[in-house]
């Protein structure tokens, strides 16, 4: 009775294929035969017809066919299905025997060959006597055959051969090949092979068809009373032959019928196993075909029906483990079928996947184990029955599912009770040898693999727990522990504490039995914790064990452990105890829920360096008994502080057991214990964060065994996060606790604090007059006053543009302490760490800071004063660095608006300047500053080629004017550009330099100079210049002499037409219209005498000039240079002479 007894036979699980034997092939020595055989058996892919080939010698003995019964009247079947039947039809009895024979149509000794072939066929026929197996002949020919009908000899001889061999023409085939081309043989025979194969397949199908007919024909002889078993057998056979025939639809139909017939059988304890075995086989076939037909739902439905029908058919109570084993196998086989179908492309879903079947198979395997444990728990003294009742004459059973000791007995009455008992005992003893755990674990792991695929993480975890437990039962504790440890955290994070506790309990047992110290301690810690759902007495037991372990003693055994293993474990523990060293364990408790809770809290999120840093460590024990610890220490990001935060107490080892609630180092269950630590921060840590990186609580002592509970950061564990959320959500009022006790939930972890500098006792004041003016030396008065009680030293000033602003501002902002000179580009934007003398208590210091801003806009300035002072904290002398900073935002604006204009001598605006024609340059400054400005001097700097009045002075023009807001100052110059400056692109004539400062600035502040570039001049040349010389005014009826000078500026002789247009206000004498020529560079003078007729501002007669050579040159242009009006005084009674003189 092997463990594979429950496995389905191979012939059941394979895909039935038509069985064809090939004879007459010498595959060992004949290369051609070998090639033919290879073509048949190699490369059997799915697209080829389903035939299983076998090469057999021509005289092979096939299984004998029993003589056919003509009547079933007296026949009583002994069982449902013979064990050899399926194999017989798959591998022993062929559907077709093919005889290969080398024979060409033009063979010389045709007669002899033909009769030899006939003999061979006859031999085959002989050995197949009584069977319907078909026979076919294949002639291996060297010559390629001619097309059918052309070779007369061939058709003649073929007919003769068929006749001799008693074959139909359909059963004779020709396989040509040519000797010299091996490649051709194979290729050719490949085509032939396909044709042959298909022909063979047809023959095989015919064979199976006749077989089905033959089995069906028996039906009519059967009767329901005696031949019930035969109904099933025949139905099964029909279905199986249909399958061989590849008629899966009919096969399925017949299997279904067979299945129903199996359940109609009269069942009794004695034949239950046989019925179930057959039902299982047929069910397997049905499910397999359903999956093959891609109807998985049918398969599932059939399987469910099968299970429902068979679930209760337990059979003999003494062998009930067999039922469990059978059930397990059913589920496993279905799972395998399902999985195979998925591999072929079926899609499964989360709630319907092979995993469930494997899981159920594992469940039944567990049940089998449990039943076996009860039923097969024989006294080792009971001997195995002799003779072996399970022994059969030929080593195998005749019928599937029967008992070895009563094969073929159909009676429900047990004839031989003794034999039956012996048989059951033998089965039970065999079952006792089965390693059930292995079976269970392999099923579970199959299920795990499936559930992993179908997104069932919890199911997976659950199965892994079961696997772990199974390993535990199988005494493979290390594997058990590995699995349990792996899934433990899933349950912990999901906070299913009951499940988590159950896993922990098993894990603790494993750890105990292996004497794994660290694991034992870790699991104990968690089982004692608040998340554990263990009863108080269990916790108490575990705690006592833990204390024993800490005192380097062996703990008590965990309950419900295997006795022999406990003994082994006790030895292991004794070894551990005697073993010195490795007695220090660090347990990272952050990731689970230990029985000591810890929270560390800084009193404040920040501390000044001159005050001591204070923080609390809160501890709370959840175990049933008070627990003592030996040391508590705290680790910081700056490890130098670690030494200040240690609580340690030496105690006798015996004290551990002393359940006194006294002493600082004792944690009383449920009480919150607070430890206060205080230390002085290092001055280097100013501005840095101090973090608690770890809290270590040491249980036990170094002399015996000690465990360091290590919390990363400021404490807390796997459950505390959620507890904190719940506590925050709760609005339940907490009752006031006596004394200084605090509610655990109300404590918030604060694991870091900032060290900030000492509060400075110094004042920094800034005085100034905003806004700043562009380019000005702007003064910012800084007043520093010490308010310290002692002398401060090493006072340093950092002042200037606050860093971090626009980079361009840094270029355009200059800062200096020395206002006496205007700063240049070499001065920085920020003055750093300028040492200032120490300050006595109360001493005040004023310092001006000068800022020069090159561009307008807002700027932020920083004034930062730092100093050192000696002070003491907690009796410790420290040097504190304090600082005070002030920032100020200053707007910069332009001091004035500058306006430059070019005007003609008539004070008209000019767009163009004409060479050699004088014009006026006006520069105007309008103050935009809210503060009065002192303009000290202005200076015009022109190109040396340009004539300018008043002349350039090296000192410039001393202005000495104070401008208030919106007041303006103008400066005017007369300028003439020579011909040489004519330039079509314009000309930069020069600049105006103004020296100024704000009026409020003291004498020590220098004036700044602003340089105003003059706008470009467009200087053009004129071919003809005209000037008029006339008195400033005229008088009515007094002659007014006027002279016009015309100057030719060109190198050519100019022809002119000049005409004088009269005016109403004047009479005149002189040339009214003239045509003349002026030589290059020559000046022509024209004299007129005007005689004013009316007083007032009168229009002069206008001179029109046309240059004949230059038609563009119009008189309009010229008129700009000529006066158009003159003031005419009325005729006076007296004093008229004076005015004429003046003119």
């Amino acid at each position, binding site marked *: 009775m092997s463990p594979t007894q429950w496995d389905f036979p191979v012939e059941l699980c394979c895909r039935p294929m038509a069985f064809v034997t090939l004879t007459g092939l010498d595959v060992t020595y004949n290369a051609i035969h070998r090639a033919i055989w290879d073509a048949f058996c190699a490369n059997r892919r799915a697209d080829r017809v389903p035939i299983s080939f076998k090469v057999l010698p021509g005289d092979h003995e096939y299984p004998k066919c029993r003589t056919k019964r003509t009547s079933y009247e007296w026949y009583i079947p002994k069982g449902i299905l013979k064990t050899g039947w399926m194999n017989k039809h798959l591998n022993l009895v062929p559907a077709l025997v093919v005889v290969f024979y080398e024979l060409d149509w033009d063979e010389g000794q045709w007669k002899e060959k033909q009769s030899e072939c006939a003999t061979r066929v006859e031999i085959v026929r002989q050995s197949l006597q009584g069977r319907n197996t078909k026979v076919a002949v294949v002639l291996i020919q060297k010559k390629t055959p001619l097309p059918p009908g052309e070779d007369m000899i061939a058709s003649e001889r073929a007919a003769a051969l068929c006749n001799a061999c008693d074959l139909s023409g359909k059963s004779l085939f020709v396989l040509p090949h040519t000797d010299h081309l091996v490649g051709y043989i194979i290729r050719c025979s490949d085509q032939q092979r396909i044709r042959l194969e298909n022909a063979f397949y047809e023959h095989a199908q015919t064979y199976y068809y006749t077989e089905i007919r033959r089995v069906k024909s028996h039906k009519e002889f059967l009767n329901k009373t005696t031949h019930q078993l035969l109904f099933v057998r025949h139905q099964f056979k029909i279905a199986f032959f249909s399958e061989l025939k590849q008629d899966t639809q009919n096969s399925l139909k017949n299997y279904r019928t067979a299945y129903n017939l199996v359940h109609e059988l009269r069942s009794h304890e004695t034949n239950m196993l046989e019925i179930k075995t057959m039902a299982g086989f047929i069910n397997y076939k049905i499910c397999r075909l359903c999956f093959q037909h891609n109807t998985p739902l049918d398969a599932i439905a059939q399987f469910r029906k099968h*299970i429902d029908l068979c679930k209760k058919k337990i059979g003999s109570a003494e062998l009930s483990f067999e039922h469990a084993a059978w059930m397990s196998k059913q589920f496993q086989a279905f799972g395998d079928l399902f999985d195979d179908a998925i591999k072929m492309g079926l899609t499964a879903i*989360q*709630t319907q996947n092979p995993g*469930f079947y494997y899981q*159920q198979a594992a*469940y039944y395997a567990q049940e089998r184990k449990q039943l076996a444990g009860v039923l097969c728990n024989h006294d080792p003294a009971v001997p195995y029955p002799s003779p072996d009742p399970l022994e059969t004459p030929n080593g195998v059973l005749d019928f599937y599912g029967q008992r070895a000791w009563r094969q073929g007995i159909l009676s429900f009455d047990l004839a031989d009770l003794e034999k039956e008992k012996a048989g059951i005992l033998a089965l039970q003893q065999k079952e006792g040898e089965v390693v059930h755990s292995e079976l269970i674990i392999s099923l579970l792991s199959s299920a795990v693999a499936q559930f992993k695929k179908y*997104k*069932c*993480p*919890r*199911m997976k975890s*659950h199965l892994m*727990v079961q696997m772990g437990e199974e390993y535990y039962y199988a005494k493979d504790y290390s594997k058990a522990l590995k699995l349990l440890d792996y899934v433990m955290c899933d*349950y912990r994070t*999901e*906070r*299913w504490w*009951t*499940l988590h506790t*159950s896993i922990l309990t098993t894990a603790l047992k494993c750890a105990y039995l292996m004497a794994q110290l660290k694991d034992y301690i870790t699991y104990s810690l968690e089982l004692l914790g608040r998340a554990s759902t263990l009863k108080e007495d269990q916790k108490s037991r575990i705690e006592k064990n833990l204390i024993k372990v800490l005192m380097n003693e062996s703990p008590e055994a965990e309950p419900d452990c295997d006795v022999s293993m406990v003994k082994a474990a006790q030895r292991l523990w004794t070894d551990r105890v005697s073993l010195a060293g490795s007695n220090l364990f660090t347990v990272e408790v952050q990731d689970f829920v230990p029985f000591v809770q810890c929270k560390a809290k800084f009193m404040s999120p920040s501390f000044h360096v001159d005050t001591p840093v204070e923080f609390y460590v809160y501890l709370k024990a959840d175990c049933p008994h008070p627990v003592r610890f030996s040391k508590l220490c705290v680790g910081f990001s700056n490890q130098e502080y670690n030494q200040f935060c240690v609580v340690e107490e030496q105690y006798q080892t015996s004290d551990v057991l002393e359940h006194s609630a006294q002493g600082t180092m004792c944690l009383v269950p449920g009480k919150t214990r607070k430890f206060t630590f205080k230390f002085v921060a290092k001055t280097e840590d100013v501005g840095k964060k101090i973090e608690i990186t770890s809290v270590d609580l040491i249980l036990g002592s170094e002399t015996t065994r000690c465990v360091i509970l290590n919390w990363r950061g400021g404490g807390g564990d796997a459950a505390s996060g*959620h507890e904190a*959320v*719940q506590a925050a*959500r*709760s*609005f*339940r009022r907490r009752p006031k606790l006596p004394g200084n006790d605090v509610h655990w939930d109300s404590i918030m972890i604060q694991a870091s604090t900032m060290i900030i500098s000492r509060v400075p006792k110094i004042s920094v004041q800034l005085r100034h007059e905003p806004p700043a003016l562009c380019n000005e030396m702007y003064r910012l008065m800084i007043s520093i006053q010490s308010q310290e009680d002692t002398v401060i030293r090493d006072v340093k000033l950092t002042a200037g543009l606050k860093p971090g602003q626009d980079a361009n501002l840094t270029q355009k902002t200059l800062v200096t302490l020395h206002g006496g000179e205007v700063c240049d580009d070499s001065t920085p934007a920020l003055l750093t760490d300028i040492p200032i003398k120490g300050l006595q208590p109360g001493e005040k210091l004023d310092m001006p800071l000068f800022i020069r801003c090159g561009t307008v806009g807002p700027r932020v300035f920083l004034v930062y004063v730092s100093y050192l002072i000696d002070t003491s904290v907690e009796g410790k002398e420290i040097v504190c660095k304090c600082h005070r900073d002030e920032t100020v935002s200053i707007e910069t604006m332009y001091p004035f608006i500058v306006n430059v204009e070019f005007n003609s001598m008539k004070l008209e605006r000019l767009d163009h300047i004409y060479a050699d024609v004088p014009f006026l340059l006006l520069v105007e400054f309008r103050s935009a500053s809210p503060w009065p400005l002192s303009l000290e001097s202005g200076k015009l700097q022109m190109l040396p080629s340009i004539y300018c009045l008043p002349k350039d002075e090296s000192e410039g023009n001393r202005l000495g004017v104070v401008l208030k807001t919106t007041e303006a100052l103008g400066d005017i110059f007369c300028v003439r550009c020579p011909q040489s400056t004519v330039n079509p692109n314009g000309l930069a004539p020069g600049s105006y330099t103004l020296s100024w400062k704000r009026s409020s600035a003291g004498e020590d502040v220098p004036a700044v100079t602003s340089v105003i570039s003059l706008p470009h001049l467009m200087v053009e040349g004129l071919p003809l210049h005209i000037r008029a010389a006339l008195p400033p005014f005229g008088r009515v009826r007094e002659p007014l002499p006027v002279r016009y000078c015309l100057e030719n500026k060109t190198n050519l002789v100019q022809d002119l037409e000049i005409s004088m247009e009269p005016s109403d206000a004047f009479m005149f004498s002189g040339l009214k219209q003239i045509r003349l020529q002026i030589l290059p560079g020559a000046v022509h003078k024209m004299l007129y005498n005007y005689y004013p007729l009316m007083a007032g501002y009168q229009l002069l007669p206008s001179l029109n000039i046309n240059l004949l050579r230059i038609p563009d040159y119009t008189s309009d242009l010229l008129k700009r240079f000529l006066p158009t009006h003159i003031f005419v005084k009325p005729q006076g009674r007296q004093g008229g002479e004076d005015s004429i003189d003046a003119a």
Partner: protein
Amino acid sequence: YLQCVSDLANYPLYIRSIPTENQLKFHYTVHTSLDVVDEKIAAMGKALVDQRELYLGLLYPTEDYKVYGYVTNSKVKFVMVVDSSNTALRDNEIRSMFRKLHNSYTDVMCNPFYNPGDTIQSRPLCV
């Protein structure tokens, strides 16, 4: 049979089984059934949150028990495990039992002294 109320984060708020033996196995069953509940909730997505059917139906069949699920709009999950042989309990009965359970749960939530997220310890939720 057994009932269980579980929170959004999948930890049990309330769990009770009748009869009380073999409790651990039922707890595992409930826990594993949350795989299916999670998957069903994820499949429902955000579509039609308002008209959503709260009753999830049979979660998955085991040989001996039937596991039913129900999820409230605030993603509080109810799971019920009943004996497969108990054919008296049809889908409609299960549905109404869940509805009653939901009502009881709502009552608990309405209790001003109850802190949401705590395990429910007061009188057993009636069915």
